[in-house]
């Protein structure tokens, strides 16, 4: 049925299967909101997320946008759950669609029982279980501006899901209070418009009920924000970067944060400039970082090698996306690890660390800064699109857990007591403490040429041999200080999972799923990926019959790295891979493990 702007009040558009049914309690609910960029889909997801959090539920949101500013399909997903889940639910319960494309795109993601709520202003949904209201027409007619269609749609959802109307209203007030009185007023009216039309349709009222949860006092944050915050409290004071999806928000957050702490953020002319500005800043003793994604990482490789051999401690956050080349800028992948593990020409030491949650991003960034400064080498913080940009509810960050350690930075007083200061002293252990450029009483030579202990260019073969051992030795000597994995699951399990980054969320959910089927598993969430942590991986692999390495790429990069360093475990390793640009859903991981178990029983 078609509608026009003159039809007020509007008649709902309802297909036959959307008839009245008893309310269904959803302990785990997933809503997709889809339309054209600029339809305000993200606002609806934000409003729903705020409501769910007020009910004590854990929230996880993700967005699926194209690499363009306006227009083009865009959708976002919000999940609310009584258990902490850092993954997209396998099948969504409700789709709010602003056009038919949103339905077509989301169709494979929808539960068999899912409902499509849609704006019937300009189309009739081609979907068996659909409910349409002309939100844009209603908002345009009553508020003078059709753009309030999204808040009106939120209003209809509050009816469908049996929201407490006081709390539903509070959410609008919180979201729009800073936008001025008019914006707030119109959004409140839009909420009522949506509620009113939905309440007129019996099958729409309290279609679902949501439980109360106990997840209170948490924060909602992304990996990018947590990394930026970790950088600040970890003493980071200099950042240079070049805009690139999905890393840009780290720079944007730091542009807001760092000036309050005498810090500097610069947008470079390219990634070459960015990494080199960071290296220059770090020579003065400033804790410095850049963030980038695959294409920028390729350009920075030259600079990272320089930092490795010139022994300048810097931090590089790599927010992985689909590559190579421009790939899919807004989509998810974990395919830079092979490049990073074998980074650059020549040989130099570096650490690759990976946090497994937004919370872990905060603390691991602090550790990464301490390690980069002490060991005077590049540290790569390996993130991925889902970890960087999806938001999850996590425990508030705890400053008492943040330790800024500077044992390796010489003060002027310490320098004055030295007989000699050598920038590149042979220690056969961690680098000797260094004097930042500008320290009274000493001058330094810092170079990417092979050098002697003073930093003077050297082609002496004995010196070269010793310098290689001094630098590469860091990979051995630092082992005890590198971040350890997080372990989950049943200790006695004979099936293991190994993963890193955002895969932790779906892995933990898959384990719960398998547990209900009587399949016991355990999980090693790797946090140091390079050097390959044999001392933690070895005992874990010894304790299982099979280990599934879960990662987002075609070639099984982490599995290959483990095989390369620990070939004795070759026959125990299996890969669970996904490389379609979407992140894992729990069944994608549970499936292959279930198959392996049942296969072995037969």
């Amino acid at each position, binding site marked *: 049925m078609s509608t026009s702007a003159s039809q007020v009040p509007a008649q709902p558009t309802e297909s036959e299967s959307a008839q009245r049914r008893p309310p269904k309690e959803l302990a785990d609910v997933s809503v997709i909101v889809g339309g054209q960029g600029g339809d305000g889909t993200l606002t609806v997801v934000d409003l729903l997320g705020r409501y769910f959090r007020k009910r004590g539920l854990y929230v996880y949101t993700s967005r699926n946008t194209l690499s363009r500013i306006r227009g083009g399909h865009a959708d976002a997903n919000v999940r609310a759950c009584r258990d902490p889940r850092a993954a997209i639910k396998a099948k969504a319960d409700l789709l709010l669609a602003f056009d038919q494309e949103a339905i077509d795109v989301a169709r494979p993601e929808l539960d068999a029982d899912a409902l499509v709520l849609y704006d019937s202003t300009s189309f009739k949904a081609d979907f068996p279980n659909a409910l349409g209201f002309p939100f844009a027409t209603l908002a345009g007619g009553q508020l003078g501006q059709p753009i309030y269609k999204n808040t009106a749609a939120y209003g209809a959802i509050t009816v469908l899901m049996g929201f407490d109307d006081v709390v539903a209203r509070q959410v609008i007030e919180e979201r729009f209070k800073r936008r001025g009185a008019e914006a707030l007023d119109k959004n409140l009216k839009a909420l009522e418009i949506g509620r009113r039309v939905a309440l007129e349709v019996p099958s729409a009222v309290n279609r679902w009920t949501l439980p109360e949860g106990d997840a209170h006092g948490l924060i909602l944050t992304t990996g990018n924000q947590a990394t930026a915050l970790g950088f600040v409290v970890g003493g980071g004071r200099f950042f240079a970067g070049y805009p690139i999806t999905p890393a840009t928000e780290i720079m944007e957050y730091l542009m807001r944060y760092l000036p309050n702490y005498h810090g500097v953020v610069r947008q*470079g*002319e390219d990634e070459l400039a960015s990494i080199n500005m960071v290296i220059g800043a770090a020579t003065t003793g*400033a804790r410095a970082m850049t963030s980038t994604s695959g294409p920028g990482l390729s350009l920075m490789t030259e*600079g990272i090698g320089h930092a490795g051999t010139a022994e300048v401690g810097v931090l590089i956050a790599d927010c992985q996306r689909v590559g190579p080349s421009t790939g899919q800028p807004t989509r998810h992948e974990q395919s830079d690890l092979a490049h990073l593990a074998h980074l650059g020409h020549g040989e130099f030491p570096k650490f690759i660390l990976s946090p497994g949650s937004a919370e872990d991003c905060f603390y691991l960034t602090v550790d990464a800064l301490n390690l980069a400064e002490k060991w005077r080498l590049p540290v790569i913080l390996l993130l991925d699109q889902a970890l960087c940009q999806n938001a999850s509810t996590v425990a508030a960050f705890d400053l008492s857990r943040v330790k800024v350690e500077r044992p390796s930075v010489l003060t002027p007083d310490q320098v004055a007591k030295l007989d000699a200061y050598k920038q590149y002293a042979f220690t056969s252990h961690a680098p000797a403490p260094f004097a930042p450029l500008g320290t009274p009483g000493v001058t330094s030579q810092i170079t990417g040429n092979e050098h002697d202990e003073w930093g*003077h260019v050297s082609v002496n073969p004995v010196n070269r041999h010793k310098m290689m051992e001094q630098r590469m030795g860091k990979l051995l000597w630092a082992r005890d200080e590198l971040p350890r994995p997080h372990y989950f699951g049943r200790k006695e399990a004979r099936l293991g999972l190994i993963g890193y980054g955002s895969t932790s969320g779906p892995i933990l959910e898959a384990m719960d799923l398998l547990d209900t089927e009587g399949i016991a598993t355990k999980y090693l969430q790797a946090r140091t990926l390079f050097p390959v942590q044999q001392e933690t991986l070895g005992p874990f692999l010894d304790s299982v019959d099979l280990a599934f390495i879960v990662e987002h790429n075609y070639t099984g990069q982490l599995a290959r790295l483990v095989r390369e360093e620990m070939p004795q475990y070759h026959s125990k390793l299996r890969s669970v891979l996904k490389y379609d640009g979407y992140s894992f859903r729990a069944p994608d991981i549970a499936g292959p493990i279930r198959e392996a178990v049942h296969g072995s029983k037969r």
Partner: protein
Amino acid sequence: MVQSAKPTANTWCPGCGDFGVLAAAKKALLDLKIPPHEAVLVGGIGCSGGIHNFIDINGVHALHGRLLAQAIGLKLANPQLTVLAAGGDGDGYAIGMGHFMHAFKKNASILYIVMNNETYGLTKGQPSPTSQIGFEGNIEAPFDAILSALSIPAPNFIARTFSGDPKTMTAVLEEAIRFNHERRGFAFVEDLSPCVTYNDTYKLWREKVVDVSKLPGYDPTDRKSMFRLYLETTEAGKIPIGVFHRPAEVARAGLEAKLLGENVGPARSEISVESNLAAYQKLLAGVA
């Protein structure tokens, strides 16, 4: 005094134009009474880029073409430092061209000296971005750094010197470093520095150089007239040397001054959690 890195033996060919720059830079730093630990020289790759080895201040040997990015990062992190960057025409105008042009825009208060010899000396005489047509088969137009510098509307100090005239060079470098110390921004000095082995241009350049300040209508505060004067002089077959741009205002236009004001900057800021506790608590409270 703690024993630390000292200058090493020079490796340049006898008669190399780069000796002139080294002597002038040393004298300028001495005359301005800058303590060695407060000065940093960032060298590029190539014969001239090794200059940081031969001078008793902090030295940084950067990647080919990336010295300006490192030097700017250094300055922004610790604005108290006197930061010099020095390299050749290949380093600055070929592989480093992107960073070179952006340095004028950024306007950080550092001094960049390009030793232009119109060839790649260290790799044995290939044509460089400034090579004349015909040099070693070069068929591409030579790049003019002064014209390019003048084309960017930023309050930079822009000059050219000649290694055959060390006295003027010292005066120009001193003025450039003072310009940096006044936090006015980026100083660029191109030195005509002949390569005695692969492109000995001493005689030719001595005949062609002309002191721009002696020409009628010289006004380095007026970009428009300097463009015209520069073009007219070069089109007449001469090579103008001297100061081409010296902005009139003494505003704190330097990038580090704009960003930091009187703040100490990243390197000297206090980073312990204890000393930032209240501010950090407030920052984290903003994440809800």
